[in-house]
């Protein structure tokens, strides 16, 4: 098992994502807002407009999903959008164009790609890492690739200086938390509950303990996802997490059963902006009255590898 120290001594220890989280922590005393949308829904160009809307209204880090036929960790909202993107002809390679456009539009916003493993395996892990890095991408979030199976991706991400965001879950043992914290770079994605993506009325009660345990296992940055949908939930989670990850609640305003005329699409974007602003306000108030809750990792300088 690799240790944090070993990882930190690698050739590519700088991480755009970790740098940003550290800066927000130090300068604004707040967690990052990580916003998810899939590439290509409802079309590639419109997905770029939607992603720019996220950026314009307060998202700090983009999680850009590659639509996949068998998304076993996604609930109905994200699956519907992913299927819609595939039906509309989205291609895996579109992700590089979208990343390039986004990073040109907002160079300060790291773009992480969320993908199930098979599209990367098919593309070739090293080739994918090379093309993602060339497009300006920050790294990958891999919901069905655990570090145990990730040798090819770990090597490719090292070679091309990309982040590796692996997941931990409430069921993860201390040994697995150490393994995952040691192999991740950028942040560790803590699944707040046992389940798939989707909006829920409450965020998992085990999320705070999971974040604490993951930190104790060596992670500097732990972001929480699954079930976060509102500004109030973002505030709650942001008190103890380094980042708040939101997916379904951002996808939902865009979903449509049929084609969207331009004026209807504009309404969707307005709705998306409102949801985003609510969440952005949520993370900004997370620690406003609770400086004592500043996480243990707050003194870490930027550029760390987890």
């Amino acid at each position, binding site marked *: 098992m690799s240790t944090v120290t070993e990882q930190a001594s690698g050739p590519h220890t700088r991480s755009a994502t970790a740098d940003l989280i550290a800066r927000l922590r130090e300068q604004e005393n707040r967690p990052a807002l990580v916003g998810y949308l899939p590439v290509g829904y409802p079309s590639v160009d419109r997905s770029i407009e939607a992603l720019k809307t996220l950026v314009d209204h307060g998202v700090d880090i983009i999680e850009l999903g590659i639509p996949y036929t*068998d998304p076993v960790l996604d609930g109905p909202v994200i699956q519907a959008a992913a299927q819609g993107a*595939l039906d509309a002809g989205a291609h895996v390679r579109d992700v590089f164009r979208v990343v390039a456009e986004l990073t040109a539009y907002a160079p300060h916003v790291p773009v992480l790609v969320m993908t199930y493993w098979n599209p990367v395996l*098919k593309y070739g892990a090293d080739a994918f890492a090379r093309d993602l890095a060339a497009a300006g991408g920050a790294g990958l979030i891999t919901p069905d690739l*655990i570090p145990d199976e990730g040798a090819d991706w770990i090597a490719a991400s090292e070679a091309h200086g990309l982040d590796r965001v692996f997941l931990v879950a409430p069921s993860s043992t201390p040994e*697995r938390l150490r393994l995952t914290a040691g192999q991740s770079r950028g942040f560790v994605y803590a699944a707040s509950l046992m389940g798939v993506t989707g909006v829920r009325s409450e965020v998992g009660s085990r999320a705070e303990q999971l974040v604490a345990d993951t930190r104790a296992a060596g992670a500097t940055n732990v972001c929480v996802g699954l079930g976060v949908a509102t500004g109030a939930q973002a505030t709650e989670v942001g008190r103890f997490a380094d980042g708040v990850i939101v997916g379904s609640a951002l996808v939902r305003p865009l979903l449509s059963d049929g084609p969207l005329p331009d004026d209807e699409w504009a309404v969707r974007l307005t709705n998306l902006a409102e949801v985003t602003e609510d969440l952005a306000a949520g993370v900004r108030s997370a620690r406003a009255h609770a400086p004592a809750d500043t996480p243990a990792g707050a003194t870490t300088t930027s550029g760390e590898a987890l």
Partner: protein
Amino acid sequence: MTHVKLSDVSGPYFGQYGGRFVPEALIAALDELETEFRKAAEDPAFAAELQRLHREYTGRPSPLTEVPRFAAHAGGGDTGAVRVFLKREDLNHTGSHKINNVLGQALLVKRMGKKRLIAETGAGQHGVATATAAALMDLECVVYMGEEDTRRQALNVARMRLLGAEVVPVKIGSRTLKDAINEALRDWVANVESTHYLLGTVTGPHPFPEMVRQFHRIIGEEAREQILERAGRLPDVVAACVGGGSNALGIFNAFLDDEGVELRGFEAGGEGIESGRHAARFSGGALGVLHGAKSYLLQDDEGQTLPSHSVSAGLDYPSVGPAHSWLHDLGRATYEPVTDDEAMEAFRLLCRTEGIIPAIESAHALAGALRVGQAAAAQGRTGPDGEPLVLLVNLSGRGDKDVATAARWFGLLDGAEGGAAAEELERQEGRG
């Protein structure tokens, strides 16, 4: 061949295939399952209880039936130059080999103290077997089934409900087995503390491929003993259909280290490889990851899973158990497609020559045996010392569930379709 016996190779990898490509949330449950499985394997009480269930509940050992009239069509003619034996998993309680694995896993579930089973099913045989074990062992049971398959296999849906299971039609994706597995995995991620996912074939994340093989190896062990007694020697060829591959691996396993025994797997060729409507992973697939395992996979050039097709719901799956991919690469087993037409012709032939209605899945293996036997006869190939060629076919299930499909296929239905149906039947009978 390596010095390690092929039949003893265990997970998590078979060559480069297998592994655990699943969300982290499931890893603790998979570790627990593997630990419990290994403890059970060492426990004589577990083996004794499973043997008792096999004997008293399932009806094992399943018989070996020689089918000379069928063999006449498989290159034997009137000379008896080809002998065909069927391993009668169709005579098991619930009508297929699936019960072997289900009883084994259900006993494990009892040991683990979980109360709820979930399962996926294509043709319904695994779902029926799981619902049966749940009833027997007082476990809650939910079965996910593609909506398309609930239509094709309405009888089995009713059977599962009679047994007390909740059947959930899956209305997303291709609405077949693949999507039922996706839904079962989602359920499992959310309920893993109380729930066991009773996966029905030799795929999925480790330890499922190894564990399911272990529970099915009894098929081959019995068949090996039976054929030695009946034919006086090992078979020349062992044939089985391959969807996920559980019945095939179950019968192959006992012969893996007998180098003289040819192992032949038959996949769903659907409407033909060139049509693109098939489920022939070794003809049209490539290395990929689906449902937790690295294996051969029907996928496009971007790694998206391609739709598969077969007249048989049970073979309609875009990937295949990792051990089969390994055996394919080693050259220890060969895999080839059988079209819907060929399978249904073999189905009809077994009905008419031997009075046995096979599952359409198993009919793929029968069609393969016809192909192998006829080719051998054409080449003058015999068994050792000029003895008849011995073909062992795994008859993995019976065709009760497929009667409606077959009736439509052969036009046996009354009513509006009746006239054309009868004409077609007469034509086929005349030809046969």
